[in-house]
Structures are given as C-alpha cells and as structure tokens.
C-alpha cells in the first residue's frame, strides 16, 4: 500500500465541525482512485492529510507503510508526486526548467543536474507528450499544456504515487480527456493514482475505485458502479440525477432539470 489513511480525523478549528471524520482510504500500485463529493466535502483536506500537510486529530496516515510525519519533505517527494489545484508562476521559466524542478529531491548538495536528471526530465516530457514544448516559456502555454507540464514535473520526481487535485478544472473536453487518458496510462504502467475531481462521469470511466465524501465522511466507496447510483448521488449532491450506463459498462450521471422525470434509465445513448 503506497498511500493509506486509517480513520483520519481532521479539525481546522477547535470550535469548527470536523473537516474529516474517520476517513479511511488506500491507494496501491497500478490503481486509480477517484475522490468525489460536493464542494466543501473534505476532498482537498483528505489529500493534504495524506501528504502530511495537516495535523490529524486522530487516526493515522501511512506512506509506504511508514507514518507520514516520519518522512522528511525531501524523501516524501521521491515517493509521492503531486499536481495541485492551481499554480501561478511568478518568474518566467521554460518548460524544461520547470520540469527540472521536479528533480530537486534527487540532486546532490550543490544542486547541479547530472545526466540521470536530464534523462528523467526528458522521459517525463516524452511521457506527457510535450517534448516539443521543452524550450517554450511557461507563460506562453495554454491551460491544457500547463497542466501537462505540471504532471511532467511530478513524473520527473520519479514517484511511486501520483496525486492530482482537480486536474481538469477549467479545461475543455479534449484537454480533459487527454489528461485523464494520460493519468490512466501512467497508472497502467505501475503508478498509484489518486485524483480529486468534480467530473463524476470521467471518474466513473477511468477510476478503478471511487471514494464519495460528504461533510467530511465517506458516504460510499468501491467500484464505480457501486458508488455512482441515483439515490446516493441525489442525496449527497442535494439535486436529482439520473444514472445511465455507457457502452463500456461505466455508470454515467445526468443531472435532471426541475420537473424532469426522475428515473433510472439504461437507454443506449450511442
């Protein structure tokens, strides 16, 4: 198990309600776990707790079997690569320079990149299909390209787990799909993947397991078909939905308009 939370409980403020309430989750190699839930349900809090950025009120978080608090930031970054929700560059680096920052934890005391570091950067750029962007300044990239650069930077860390917090926010359909295909490919080559997303349909198609959070607690967890159900989603999101099945067997969610017939449908939508 690479990332594991056992009954993790987090409270931001002594008088505030629990941000995470006894949440357990596990991510292992070659497995993609999607964390979904309404705004404020604790998705990002869970990720931050898994990365040791938040103190737990109770429970345990383990990275590769060791308590996350026992890891130095440097050592942890060689195991877990993270692509955060947002990142705005202040200084004008090139794509290759940005991806090389992923090698920080691998560099020696003088911080001089060696051949192995340059190879890791090149390999990360190739895996994300952005080698041709290597010399472009990052402020000239589109939103989709910038996301890929950040995934490449995380890959340059040569991690065993990849954590992505809303990676497709503000991307169009093509870039969303390209990014999820890339994530799936990386997971299929052995990485453990944890992705937070608001895209229930993409989560259902790409993830092996889904964790549905609401108000800091796990409402449902398991294979997409077990979690993406009409009753559960309508209750958690407080909005009527219909759930249909796509040709690959994955459940797909259609939010209903007021007055629309609220029923489960298995119509062939092809």
């Amino acid at each position: 198990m690479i990332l594991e939370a056992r009954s993790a409980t987090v409270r931001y403020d002594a008088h505030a309600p629990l941000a995470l309430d006894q949440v357990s989750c596990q991510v292992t190699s070659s497995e993609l776990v999607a964390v979904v839930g309404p705004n404020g349900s604790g998705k990002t809090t869970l990720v931050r707790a898994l990365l040791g950025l938040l103190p737990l009120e109770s429970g345990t978080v383990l990275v590769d079997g060791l308590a996350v608090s026992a890891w130095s930031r440097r050592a942890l970054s060689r195991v877990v690569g993270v692509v955060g929700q947002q990142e705005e560059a202040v200084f004008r680096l090139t794509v290759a320079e940005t991806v090389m920052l992923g090698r920080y934890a691998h560099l020696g005391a003088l911080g001089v990149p060696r051949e192995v570091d340059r190879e890791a950067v090149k390999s990360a750029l190739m895996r994300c299909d952005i080698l041709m962007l290597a010399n472009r300044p990052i402020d000239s990239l589109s939103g989709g390209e910038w996301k890929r650069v950040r995934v490449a930077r995380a890959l340059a860390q040569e991690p065993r787990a990849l954590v992505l917090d809303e990676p497709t926010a503000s991307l169009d359909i093509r870039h969303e799909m390209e990014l999820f295909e890339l994530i799936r490919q990386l997971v299929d080559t052995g990485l453990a993947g944890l992705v937070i997303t608001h895209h229930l349909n993409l989560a259902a198609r790409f993830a092996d397991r889904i964790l549905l959070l609401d108000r800091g607690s796990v409402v449902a967890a398991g294979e997409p078909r077990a979690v993406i159900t009409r009753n559960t989603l309508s209750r958690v999101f407080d909005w009527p939905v219909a759930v249909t099945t796509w040709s690959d067997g994955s459940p797909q969610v259609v939010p209903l308009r007021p007055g629309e017939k609220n029923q489960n449908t298995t119509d062939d939508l092809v």
Partner: protein
Amino acid sequence: MRGARVIGLVLFVVVCLAAGLSAGAVPLPLSAVWEGLWNSGSGASAIVRDLRAPRVLLAFLVGGSLGICGAALQAMIRNPLAEPYLLGLSSGAGLGAVIAIATRAGSAWAVPLAAFVGAMSAVVLVYRLSLVSGRRLDPHVLLLSGVVVGAFAGALMSAVMVLSDAPGVRNAFLWLLGGFGTASWRALAVFSVYAALPLAVLMYHARALDLIALGDEPAHHLGADVHRLRRLVYICTALLTAASVATCGIIGFVGLVVPHAVRIVYRPLHRSLLPIVFLVGGCFLVLADVVSRTVVRPLELPVGVVTALIGVPLFALLLRRTLA
C-alpha cells in the same frame, strides 16, 4: 553563447572596478592606477590603495549583497517588487542613527552601530509579528508588519529630530542617504567576514528558492522545507541589509531593480541568477559611487540618490524593450 555572456560579465566587472579606482576628486589615468596598485613608492599609491581600493571593493560587496537579498526576497514573497527595505529595517536603522546623533554619542562607530541595532530591532519585531500560529512565517503578514513597523519607527525618528537640539541631526539624514566616504580596509574586512556566512547560506539554498517561488504547496510537494527555508532567507537578508545600512546608509533600488533586470536578460533559475545578480549589483553600486564622486566634484552626491537617478531610467528602458 553562454560562455560569451560569462566572459562579457567578467570583463564588465573588471571595467567597473578600474573605473572606480580611476575616477574621483583627483582623476587618475589607468596607468597611474596600475602603478599605484603594485608600487607602494608611486605618487598615486596612497590614493589608490588606501582610499579608493577599499571604497570600490566595499561598494561592490554591498551592491552584490543587496542584489542577492532582493532576489531571495522576491522569490520568498513571490513578488518581483519586493526589496530588502520592505522589511521595515531602513526606518529602524534611521531611528537608531538619529538617537545616537541626538544623544551626542561620541565614537566614530557609534552611529553605524546604533543604526545596526535599530535595524535589527525592527527586524526582530517584524519577524515576531509575522509568525502565524506560533511558528510559521507568513509572507503577506511579513510585508504588512514591515510596513507598520517602518511607519512606527519613522514617526519616532521624526519626533526625536523635532525634539532634539543636537546640531548634527541633519547629518543623520545625509548619512542615511548613503555613501562610501568613510570606507576603509577595516570596514571592508568587517563587512566581508560578516557577510560571508549569510551570502553562502543564500547561495547554498538557490535551488530551494526556485521551489519557494512556485508557492508553498508546490514547494512542499517538490521536497522543500518551506518554513525552515523562509526563516533562513528572512534572517540572512535581514542580517545583510542591516549590515549594509550600518556600513553606508540606505541605498535603495539595487535590491529591487538588479535582480529584476537580470531575470529579464538571463534565465531566472536562482543557481545562476544569484551569482550574476551579485556581480551586476556590485558593478551597479561601484558605478553609482563613481558618479556620486565625480558629477559635482569636489562635493559628493549621496549614492542612494544616484542609484535612483540612474537606475529608474535604465530600468524603465529595459522594461519597455522587454514588453515591446
């Protein structure tokens, strides 16, 4: 291309140092400077060795240090407009100097020492105010604390000046405007020994500065200990800036503009940026000092005035050309 730039930069440093040794109230041709440097019997030896060499080297070292402080703070605060004096220590230093003068402190070292104590007091106060949750140094709170502590120290300084009848209080202002008129080998030695450690610490953490410039969370994820790094950067830049204020008054603009200009011309990764900023900052201040000594000869303009008068148009030009 890269080699040519390095050679060009080294030549630029040599030319600036030579100009610094040659120019002054008594202009010396380069041959006389060379003779004076190596031959103690030459006529120019006293001027070159005892007066100009320590002055030029001190200006170079202070300029380089201020440049590196600016670059490190800009990365830490993630703002290209950050500069060393944002931390409120210029007013702290000013208050210290004015108190020393108003109380007629006698020794020649009293004013710089009081300025250093004032600057460090402001630094400690700003640092304490900026600690969030007991131990995290928040860069936004740091900026605000710097501004309010600076304003408070500035108000106290004005009060001391108004209430004091000491004749030298006006000199405190002149002294604060900056200059290397009192440079000596001893001052150079003290500053060099003192500055070596904070400069080395900042250079050693150059890669980590690249990460912290991305923001706290990305830096955490890439393996940097953000809170420790931020404390280190703050302490090192504060120590260097306080020492430079105590040595030669408040010289603005170097720490703001030099790192920014170097980032535009060269790549902005700190491992190569910091040494280049050090060299360019040093040259900039040596040239500003040359101008301050020669433009209204035999009087001297405060070097802080010159850095602004030269730096602003140069910077505006560079900015316009870059954005065009």
